[in-house]
């Protein structure tokens, strides 16, 4: 931490920054616990942090099972974060991830329950559905100049209502339970193949979703940083006009970016719902997953691998809430802690930027001689 050269390495900074913000958040969380019930605050904090490791003494098997659950549940938010950061790098704020995730749910459950497809097809369907939703937003943006944020918000709701119609039907919804049928009952071939289930205490939901998530993150990392495609997308993100000048097809790239981003979001739903761990119930608001994804993407420093770590962290604290003694605290305290940590992250990013390049100032507009320059940054809606 002392050596300037060491501290200036971006990866080190990101890591330091993330750790710092987690610690700060935990300290603040402790203070909140003290406010609510000072006597048991230490115990409460310990419960959240110990989390499922409380089973370490009782049974390693149980511990591993809950470790597995933890991983399983982290998958969708991580992938939503990947979807958001991918688009963000290309200069698009894909707030429509929530809706793309929702249509991914439709695809996952409709193909597996109503159509009886096997899992590879179901998974492809989720990607296609998310991609389609991204495609629509992309077309509105590319051809009609409709801001992707507003198109995304509208499509989120449209997706939700379509989801209610399709999944609420007889074929998918178990009317007497008001939730969708078990994939394992209707169509076991629709479930994703297991992954190291024995290692993870026989956790039936441990599936190939876990390695796929990691692979997707690595692919995104490579695509963004190493490939010509990533080069194009980032160029378009920074300066649409320059991208056009250099012969890149801006419209195509906008659409393609949102298609890919949407596909990842759809896959997030697929990799979660096709494990069978979750069912769909009629909902009156858009699933929060997409919005949590925004937070996780930024918490992870908009870095594909960072998003994995951030997603795991957020999920860990979320799960920690259930270990609080409810006689003293309500479980929502964990949500509060997470939101504080994410908020603090804003400050830490600033901190890192300072370490990074002390002179990055906007006034250096002065070092640039022509007045048309500001048009380069023009944002259109």
């Amino acid at each position, binding site marked *: 931490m002392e050596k300037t050269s060491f501290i200036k390495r971006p990866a080190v900074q990101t890591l330091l920054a993330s750790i710092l913000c987690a610690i700060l958040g935990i300290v603040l969380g402790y203070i*909140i616990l003290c406010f*609510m019930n000072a006597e048991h605050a230490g115990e409460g904090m310990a419960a959240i942090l110990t989390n499922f490791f409380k089973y370490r003494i009782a049974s390693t098997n149980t511990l591993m099972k809950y470790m597995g659950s933890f991983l399983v549940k982290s998958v969708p938010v991580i992938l939503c974060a990947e979807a958001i950061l991918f688009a963000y790098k290309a200069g698009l*704020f894909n*707030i429509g991830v929530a809706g793309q995730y929702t249509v991914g749910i439709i695809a996952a459950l409709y193909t597996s329950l109503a159509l009886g497809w096997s899992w590879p097809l179901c998974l492809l369907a989720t990607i296609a559905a998310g991609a389609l939703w991204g495609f629509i937003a992309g077309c*509105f943006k590319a051809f*009609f*100049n*409709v*801001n992707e*944020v*507003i*198109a995304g*918000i*509208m*499509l*989120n*709701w*449209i997706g939700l*209502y*379509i989801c*209610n*119609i399709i999944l609420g039907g007889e074929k998918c919804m178990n009317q007497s339970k008001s939730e969708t049928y078990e994939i394992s009952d209707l169509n076991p071939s629709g479930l994703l193949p297991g992954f190291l289930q024995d290692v993870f205490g026989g956790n039936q939901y441990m599936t190939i979703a876990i390695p796929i998530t990691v692979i997707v993150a690595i692919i995104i990392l490579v695509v963004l940083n190493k490939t010509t495609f990533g080069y194009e997308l980032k160029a378009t993100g920074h300066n649409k006009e320059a991208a056009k000048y250099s012969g890149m097809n801006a419209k195509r790239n906008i659409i393609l970016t949102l298609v890919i981003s949407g596909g990842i979001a759809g896959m997030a739903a697929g990799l979660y719902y096709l494990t069978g761990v979750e069912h769909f119930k009629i909902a*009156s*608001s*858009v699933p929060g997953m997409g*919005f*949590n994804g*925004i*937070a996780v993407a*930024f*918490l992870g420093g908009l870095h594909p691998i960072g998003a994995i770590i951030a997603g795991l962290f957020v999920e860990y604290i979320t799960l920690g809430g259930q270990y609080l003694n409810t006689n003293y605290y*309500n479980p*929502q*305290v964990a*949500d*509060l802690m*997470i*939101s*504080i940590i*994410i*908020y603090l*992250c*804003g*400050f830490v*990013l*600033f901190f890192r*930027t300072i370490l990074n390049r*002390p*002179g*990055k*100032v*906007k*006034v250096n*507009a002065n070092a640039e001689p022509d007045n048309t320059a*500001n048009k380069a*940054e*023009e*944002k*259109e*809606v």
Partner: protein
Amino acid sequence: MVLLIQYTLIFSAVLILVALGGMFSERSGIINLGLEGIMVFGAMAGAMVMVLLPSDASRFTIIALTLLAAAVAGMLSSLLIAVACINFKADQTLIGTALNMLATASATVIIKGFNTARSGGTDFSAKLDYVRGHNAFMFNIGSLQLSWFIVVAAVLLVVAIIFFYKTKLALRIRACGEHPQAADSVGINVYAMRYIGVLMSGFLGGLGGIIYIAAANSTWHFDYGVAGAGFLALAVMIFGQWKPERIAWSAVLFALFRSLSNVYMGIGFLHALPISGTVYNMFPYIVSLIVLAFTSQNSRAPKAEGVPYDKGAR
């Protein structure tokens, strides 16, 4: 039909105020994704005041204090955005999202604590009942039920339009959202202008929040937040191309279709159509998208929004 008007008015009041709030913030250069959270804070404070006021409080007192509390709470919560994004140059998207999460989580925790303390441990819900407060706002014109909320929103809309186009302060705020260096170079304090913009969004967003929960309901469950209303307002703001009068029209259009989805079964011929309720629910969003496709060609966001302003190495 009366109901359609009534609900359109309520919902457009909410959207107009919150979208205007978003507009002032973005015009000053700060993207405010935290409108949803600001609404929750405003709603919570307003509802708490309605609950706490003694039962002999006059109608005027109830109205004034409720609105005041909501506005102040909205402004305080918007400070969270201002400090992080203006002084610390935090990413505005991140902070906005964090504020939304923070609002719902802390409203839940706070209201639970509030109820527990007030009931001596028998009520620990995240719900407030404020029928008396709600009723204090209501009045009727014929069979049309109106509320002071709508009047307040209408007045604020007019004020906002005049302010936006006619005042010195608004000119400066707008300059900061377009070209903060230019503003700075003529001696305008960009940070201060952005603070004002964000605080205005807090003020209007807080009021929007209390209207959202109290104009048509007399109970609210704070663990459910405001169910995306803040994001809709954001959409309305973009729809209105960051101009107050256009925002008003966009809000009314959107609110009309949304209300229709709630009351269509009261309108005979609509109910008779073979269209399911869910399709009606989708209408406002589909209509908006279509209208946007035709109106967005020249739409442009404030140029400097989202970019933290740094005076330099000072």
